[in-house]
């Protein structure tokens, strides 16, 4: 049984660190809610209570509707793709093939790069007609694709960048999980005549589930958290086709200087993340229940 925490120690151990955390996590979230009921102050016009006006604007905002669709597609696209690729990479790296070190370097390198650097690299890579992507397509006789200049490819191009950057990190987690798979389990399956594909799906994959959950949660949070590449590569365009929610918050607040609407959008963002968290929790619980 643990001792009771003395007050003096509590102040040092809990209050000071947690105060910092609360000041920049809970306090701003609550204040965003408060500020969303006020309109934007400017030097010539003080802020005034407007009730739900900002939320009405939110509902009527068709750019926001587009942004939410984009964010959803982005999350649905990047998370599974990054996971599948990460598992493939982990399997390849784990297979003790020649050149494993080089391969691991290639997969993991993007993870070390700042997103802003990744965006610079891919901006030139994508440049229609002159970038490497176009040159490679040209070898196969395919016309250059205007990746970032078309509404139907810009978001997918952003996803590719995100997957490229993140899959390597997730690979590491899978690698750890793979190496923890007991060899005798696999041997037993093989003895029963299971081929490598069967062994993977019947024995290995179920054991990777905790890792997949961990990675999926991380990837999902990153899908909402990381918009550096949008800022650098497309500024949300063309016609908002690649704008993500956090990017929209950033431009509304710091470009258009509408802090009140920015706060309202922040509330929306927090609400979305909250719902996702509850959803995840529910799924995890249900799955656990069945086992």
């Amino acid at each position, binding site marked *: 049984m643990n001792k009771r925490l003395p007050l003096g120690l509590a102040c040092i151990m809990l209050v000071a660190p947690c105060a910092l955390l609360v000041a920049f996590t809970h306090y701003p979230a609550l204040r965003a809610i408060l500020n969303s009921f006020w309109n934007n102050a400017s030097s010539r016009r003080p802020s005034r209570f407007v009730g739900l006006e900002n939320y009405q604007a939110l509902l009527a905002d068709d*750019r926001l509707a587009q942004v939410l669709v984009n964010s959803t597609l982005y999350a649905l696209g990047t998370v599974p793709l990054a996971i599948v690729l990460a598992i493939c990479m982990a399997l390849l790296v784990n297979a003790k093939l020649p050149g494993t070190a080089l391969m691991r370097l290639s997969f993991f390198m993007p993870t070390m790069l700042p997103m802003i650097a990744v965006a610079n690299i891919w901006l030139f890579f994508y440049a229609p*007609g002159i970038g490497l992507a176009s040159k490679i397509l040209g070898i196969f006789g395919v*016309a250059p694709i205007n990746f*970032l200049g078309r509404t139907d490819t810009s978001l997918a191009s952003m996803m590719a960048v995100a997957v490229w950057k993140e899959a390597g990190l997730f690979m590491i987690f899978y690698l750890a999980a793979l190496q923890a798979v007991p060899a005798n389990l696999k041997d037993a399956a093989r003895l029963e005549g299971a081929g490598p594909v069967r062994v993977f799906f019947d024995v290995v994959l179920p054991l990777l589930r905790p890792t997949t959950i961990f990675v999926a949660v991380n990837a999902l949070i990153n899908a909402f958290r990381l918009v550096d590449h949008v800022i650098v590569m497309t500024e949300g*365009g063309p*016609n908002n086709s690649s704008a993500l929610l956090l990017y929209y918050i950033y431009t509304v607040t710091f470009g258009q200087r509408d802090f009140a609407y920015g706060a309202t959008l922040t509330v929306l963002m927090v609400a979305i993340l909250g719902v996702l968290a509850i959803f995840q929790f529910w799924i995890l619980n249900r799955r656990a229940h069945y086992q």
Partner: protein
Amino acid sequence: MKAIYRVALPLVAAALAGTAAKSAAAADIELYFPVGVNAPAVATIQALTDEWAANNPQHSIKAVYAGNYEETTTKALTAAHAGQPPAVAVLLAIDIFTLIEEDVILPISDLATSDEDKAWMDGFYEGFMKDARFEDKTYAIPFQRSTPVFYYNVDAFREAGLDPDAPPTTWDEMIEMGKKLVVKDANGNVTRWGTRIPTLGLGGAWMFGGLVVSKGDVLSTETGTEARIDTPASLASLEFLLSLAEEGVMAPGGISWGDTPKAFLEGQTASMWTSTGNLAFVNENATFDWNVGFLPGGDGPGAPAGGGNFYIFKDTTDEERAAALDFIKFMTSPESAAKWSIATGYVAPRPDAWETPEMQAYVAELPQALVALEQLPYAQREFATFQRAKVTQYLVDAIEGAVTGSVDPAEALQGAQEKADAVLSDYR
């Protein structure tokens, strides 16, 4: 001997008084400016600020490169709201309404009140002063001003059997000549387009303003409360952009501002419409003969005036303001303006700068530099309103939506007009 004393003494006295007055007004000022990685340009800014600081040892100045135009405006605004604005900044001419609304800048005409000052302010090209004024006051001093011009690859023109001394002047000619300039490979893929007009982002909106001007209209007026997005002229302009792609002259889809000079230098396009601020860059990197002409127009020549002006910020001391004004005068002096223009390609904003020997020699060597100046009489102000960032985004969305084929042009313009009106109605 006595005569000399009589002349010299007052001079010495004046000089002493001058230094005394100057040292009493010492100030440390900060300058925010938006100039790219183009190393010579940054070096020129640094050299000019150093020169000013050397001439005014009582002052000090720190030049802060804050990113591109939009980023620099954001930074200047946040700094101003945090109570630590730069004394002076080079920001987009079109941000005047935002800066006034946010109440962070001072009318320079309130600071520069002597007859000499007034003469100085009258010495700028009227075309560049139009968007520096608001309600009878002058808030800004033109510095790195530009208009877009038509850059074309002379070798490509020759190769296509076109007269390199007669670039297209109308939209029809642009399409007609453009078709001849297109080159395809064995697979039928285009390896060189006829032209390239940026259509994405703020740069795209700027170019679009030029098209509208050549159709005899403007996108906005000097009040800052009127957006004229849904007009016959702008519909015609949008349709021209679409027809370029339909006729196979220009790559379909949105065209980015940033890639454009590179595409031109790589021979991916035989011509491009972009800022005169790219002159130095093109001149340095082009491996082929090139030339510059007026922008081809709808009903005659037309271009948007663009670029950056000096602004003086409000939350500053009298000394800082005086120093800032003095600095601006120095930077726009004929010699400095000439140096800056030569280093970048921006249009020197005063006639007297063009008369300096340096500028004369430069123009003799690079006659392309004159085109933007000659085009100036046909230029109109760039799209600018209150809530500039928000309202411009509506215009940008409309253009991007139309050129990417996701929205019907007329609908796009109409939608943008309605949204802009909704925002601007508060200001009328």
